[in-house]
């Protein structure tokens, strides 16, 4: 039996599959479909300090092999999360990564402080990349200094693993991974969604109430794989990859590109039973290829040229 465990800084995950933030409710919604303790981790829906109503509908629209969302981070806020969701998650023995969002640096710090004291929190994912809200978040994620500042401020106040979540809406994502590493991050995760939009041509109005939204799903996978590949070569800390993963093959593609673990988002909407299917597919692959530990696959992409190379006459 292959060893599926992977290491994210000080945290050991049972396997590399994490439920992506915002795509798995608070986790409890899916407890009937999947035994939460069998997941590498459950990443919570993005949490602010205070409850938020989010954007009015329409909040999603389907696009070719993808979807746009502009949920606007509707959520119950960190205090109700701790009071109402964490106990059940603890009971179900989920590994909980909390996705935190602030409008200011201080809010990130306060969230980190509060969550560091909570029982059953295993890591913090810093959402500095949500394209759907005007305040904060992505303004940190699109600036190297902003990224460095948030990560180091949070680093100072928590013993938990700190995982900044990077936006793909930048020229050079690897530089953000480096800034995160320098600031003391235990890992980076990427990608968040691509800023995008869709228009109803009959009404000439945006299909989303928020005008723009974030593109996720299989459509973005080739870009996400490239970004993971770039980041893994730029830093020594683990990279958590995501973007359009919908099968064991896709997970393996990210691992081989350089991801130590992966998250599945949109595909969980399509198939809430995806988790065991993907895990079985990975086990099968490891066996067929005689790989003892899933961690041995990470970054094993072979870019040496074996093509018949010749030059023009």
């Amino acid at each position, binding site marked *: 039996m292959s060893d599926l465990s992977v290491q994210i800084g000080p945290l050991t995950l049972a396997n590399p599959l994490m439920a992506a933030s915002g795509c798995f409710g608070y986790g409890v*919604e*899916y407890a009937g*479909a999947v035994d939460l303790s069998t997941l590498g981790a459950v990443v919570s829906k993005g949490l602010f300090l205070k409850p938020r109503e*989010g954007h009015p509908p329409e*909040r999603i629209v*389907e696009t070719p092999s993808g979807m746009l969302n502009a949920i606007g981070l509707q959520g119950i806020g960190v205090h109700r999360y701790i009071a109402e969701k964490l106990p059940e998650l603890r009971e179900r023995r989920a590994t909980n990564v909390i996705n935190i969002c602030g409008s200011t640096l201080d809010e990130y710090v306060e969230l980190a402080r509060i969550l560091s004291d909570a029982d059953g929190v295993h890591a913090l994912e810093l959402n500095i990349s949500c394209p759907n809200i005007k305040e904060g978040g992505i303004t940190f994620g699109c600036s190297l200094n902003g990224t460095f500042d948030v990560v180091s401020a949070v680093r100072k106040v928590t013993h938990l693993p700190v995982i900044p979540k990077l936006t793909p809406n930048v020229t050079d994502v690897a530089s953000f991974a480096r800034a995160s590493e320098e600031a003391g991050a235990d890992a980076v995760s990427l990608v968040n969604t691509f800023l995008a939009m869709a228009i109803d041509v009959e009404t000439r109005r945006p299909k989303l109430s928020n005008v723009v939204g974030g593109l996720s799903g299989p459509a973005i996978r080739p870009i996400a794989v490239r970004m993971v590949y770039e980041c893994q070569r730029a830093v020594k800390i683990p990279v958590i990859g995501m973007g359009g993963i919908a099968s064991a093959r896709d997970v393996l593609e990210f691992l081989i590109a350089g991801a130590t673990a992966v998250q599945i988002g*949109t595909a969980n909407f399509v*198939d*809430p039973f995806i988790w065991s299917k993907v895990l079985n597919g990975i086990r099968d692959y490891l066996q067929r290829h005689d790989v003892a530990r899933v961690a041995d696959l990470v970054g094993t992409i072979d870019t040496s040229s074996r093509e018949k190379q010749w030059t023009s006459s």
Partner: protein
Amino acid sequence: MPVDVEARVIRNTRLSSDYNVIALAAPEIAGAVEPGQFVMVKPGRGTDPLLRRPFSVFEVLRREGRVEGLTLLSKRIGAVTGLLFDVVEGDVVSCLGPLGRPFNLVDPPAEAWMVAGGVGLAPFATLAESLVARGTKTTLFYGARSGAELFYLDWFESRGIRLVLSTEDGSRGERGRVTVPLERELRRAGSADLESADIKVFACGPEPMLEAVSQLAAKYGKRSEVSVERVMGCGMGGCYSCVIPVRDAGGGHHYVRSCISGPVFAGADLAWD
């Protein structure tokens, strides 16, 4: 919890150039579904279309006493309903369910008045069967664009459901909106010359119709339950796409996920603005 079934298409019956009924071999779901619950379906393979789409369970199919499958009543409006219109026997449709909160039934002597607008007929076949089984007197107010888009009338009649029909073009039943005969009958019921005035109104159709029905029910002092159709990404409470504003105690509103808190809501709870 819901199950996911790779359901074979047993048959595809076209009712018009836009409406069809697809019979799916999904006995696991059909055997568990309650009236008002829905399934999330995806025909074909590949990632375009990507997301499943929500459909009410229309009928539960039984053969020799055993549950064989279920049907969907589908109106063609876009990508997935277009594919569903064209499926043929032997094709496979992924079907996840049952999902959502069902209608709350009523027992005699209370009466049930079902109000359907267009494809909003879909949840009322199973509801009617459950009501009839309890002996609850049931009426179907059913409005459509034209008489050619009023389907399954015999089906309902043969089960003893009283039909009140309306069409926008007047080609069958009363001309105009279904809320006109509904209000007339509510008014009449209020005047107590009807056998029973304990009536619960169930509605499914376009949201403006649901709003009107809820308000009429409230006006005449009747309970109502409406089944709403918001765009749904997952049907399981995971994505927060399907939210609808409900009233809260303080007089304000907040968004709840219609896939898990609904799709059936008490008409009085929704914040129709």
